[in-house]
């Protein structure tokens, strides 16, 4: 108990308490959830917005402004929509640790429930793309080949031909798509996080996004096939050249040393 009281002035104490409170609220809410469905949705929605606002005030407001109006440290969030929040917070990019050319992907620090609450709050600030449903982003049944063509038209210039990522100006990068979930890919195309342009439904309909996700999963998913052996990072000729020099020529020179070396002489008798 002593330990605990010693830490109550810790800067994170408020956060911890808040989180505990939130968890308790959420738990209590779940336990006493009213039966009336339609009414429940509405109530839960406003409750989520309220909780999201609390989370927002603690975790986001210092950069994005208390009402999401933005500041010199962060862009306004009015109208970015729930999808943007789900992507940024759900991939750990937000909250940002430090300013820089680009905010990198990190460990996610909020639970999905909290992310949903944050998203609900930010969505309430102004209309924007909502979190896609599984039906929207699930690649099942999509046209992989069509997705490949769209991927090459819209995505490979930054993300590379199998989504390994690539360089942008001044230290910015287009990240690798390895391990990116279909939902996050969908949201990224929908909302255009950071310097990535968006590909809204008006110019790239939902079905095409699914096709692209299906293609990414095929060439860069866990089960991506590389029939010819190691894919060497899928980076093209640079990694191939390095491999050719180090392992190709290297092994051959080692063989040459063996061929040309003198055979061990018998000990002098």
């Amino acid at each position, binding site marked *: 108990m002593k330990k605990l009281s010693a830490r109550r002035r810790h800067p994170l104490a408020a956060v911890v308490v808040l989180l505990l409170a939130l968890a308790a609220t959420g738990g209590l809410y779940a336990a006493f959830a009213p039966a009336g469905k339609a009414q429940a949705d509405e109530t839960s929605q406003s409750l989520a917005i309220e909780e999201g606002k609390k989370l927002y005030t603690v975790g986001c407001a210092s950069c994005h402004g208390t009402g999401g109006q933005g500041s010199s440290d962060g862009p306004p969030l009015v109208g970015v929509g729930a999808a943007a929040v789900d992507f940024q917070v759900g991939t750990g990019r937000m909250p940002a640790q430090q300013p820089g050319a680009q905010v990198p992907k990190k460990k996610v620090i909020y639970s999905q429930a909290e992310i949903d609450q944050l998203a609900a709050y930010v969505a309430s600030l102004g209309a924007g793309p909502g979190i896609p449903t599984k039906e929207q982003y699930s690649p099942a049944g999509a046209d992989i080949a069509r997705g*490949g063509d769209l991927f090459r038209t819209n995505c*490979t210039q*930054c993300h590379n*031909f199998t989504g390994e990522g690539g360089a942008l100006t001044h230290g910015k*990068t287009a990240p690798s798509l390895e391990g990116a979930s279909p939902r996050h890919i969908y949201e990224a195309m929908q909302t255009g996080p950071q310097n990535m342009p968006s590909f809204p439904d008006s110019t790239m309909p939902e079905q095409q996004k699914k096709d692209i996700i299906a293609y990414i999963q095929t060439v860069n998913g866990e089960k991506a096939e590389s029939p*010819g052996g190691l894919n060497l990072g899928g980076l093209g000729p*640079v990694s191939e050249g390095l491999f050719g020099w180090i392992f190709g020529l290297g092994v051959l020179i080692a063989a040459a040393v063996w061929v040309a070396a003198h055979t061990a002489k018998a000990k002098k008798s």
Partner: protein
Amino acid sequence: MSTSTASSDDKNRRAPAGERVADWADGRLGIYSLAKANMRKIFPDHWSFMLGEISLYSFIIIILTGVYLTLFFHPSMNEVVYHGSYVPLQGVRMSEAYASTVDISFDVRGGLLIRQIHHWAALIFLAAMLVHMMRVFFTGAFRKPREINWLFGFLLFVLGMFTGFTGYSLPDDLLSGTGVRFMQGAILSVPVVGTYLSMFLFGGEFPGGDFVARFYSVHILLLPGIMLGLVVAHLILVFYHKHTQFAGPGRTNTNVVGMPLLPVYMAKAGGFFFLVFGLIAIVSAIATINPIWALGPYRPDQVSTGAQPDWYMGFSEGLIRVMPGWEINFLGHTLVLGVFIPLVIFPLVLVAIAVYPFIEGWVTRDPREHHILDRPRNAPTRTAFGVAWLTWYFILLIGGGNDLWATHFHLSINAITWFVRVAFFVGPVVAFVVTKRICLGLQRRDAEKVLHGRESGIIKRLPHGEFIEVHTPLDQADLHRLTAHDQHKPAEIGPPVDENGVRRKVGPAEKLRVKLSKGYYGEGSQIPKPTAEEYNEIAAAHGHGHEEITTGHGNH
């Protein structure tokens, strides 16, 4: 034919079948005289002498696998819709060239293996040629009488680059098409005739429908044909000149020491071919190269980041990436310097190393034949030049991959580009100075070793308490090895007037030669090697009394 005539009472015992075949061939080809000179020809043993063999064997492997690939590849840009077994491309429009390459990879059993062997062997072929060239360069093996063979080798390297580039372009995938587009853009930058060259090469506007078929005949017939001829000439000259060797006991400028072609080198060289082929096959089994199916078919409006050529074209890629975008209007015409200057520097980078033997020959005016190799340290200026050139080359290679260094080392692509821009000028100079110093340091160490022996690591305590390290003297073989090189004297301009008191005319070329010669062999450019007198003096001094001398030695 022999069974009918063979009879048991044949008086003249018939020669064995092999000999009879040989007799037959000798009567038509003169093989006995050929064999007399060559069958027991001596080759020296050194691993670095086998780099050329790696090149030769990978070339043969490329030809063998290339012939196989021609059986399945369709060099056509007619558009087809793909319906093969690779699902992510089904229904996609592509050229027949691309479709047939995908088929080779997915529907021909073993086709993918042969494709990968072909491509890996090509990368290794060029890498081995470069390393072989550098071996020849740093050991001075290009000196008389081998200058022409150096040029043959150089031409093989350059032709290899272009054969590689045309081959890389054939599958008509997104990456190779981007490379071809780059080439076309570079051709357009040529003043006056650029647009004409481009139209003629592509049969009209880019990409047109012709370049795959045209590159195909260049790739499989024209360039390899010339290369094959050059390889034969290169080998004939190697046989004719006999191989160079490093100095050593019994190894002089007028002999070659080693083991005979039959049987040792027949087995070693022949076996090495199989080693090279086997190892390249294993590399091709485990590592993908150029997965064209993942790149997609070429479309001029699509591109993937990380668009690089194969490594041997990487330095030209670096040149073009770091060049500032200069473009000027010249009497109503556009001079695209931002592209044209790199296009001109590109061959100059290669020519710089190719002409070096002739520059050195001109500076030294050395009329002798050289069959003993230099140790790189004993030719500091040459070694420094070679390292400077390599530094230049590798800086450009870094420039060619700037986007990947940026993403993988978390750097700014702009910073890397600026680094390469500066290093392009500074890097070679620094490398030259540093290398020369290192060479001189090594020369000093050699001289020390000759005069005082090698440090044995044994510490001895002298009667009066001092500790000294015992130096083990070198045996005569090592003494010879370390002093066998000859050291040139710098050239002199000579007296300003000749013997008749008439002023001699010294042209600017001669002045330059003398200046260069001073730079090569003047003070501070080589450490005089120990003389026999110096050696004997120290040896004699040692003879008087060990203790004092070794003490004195320690104080040296």
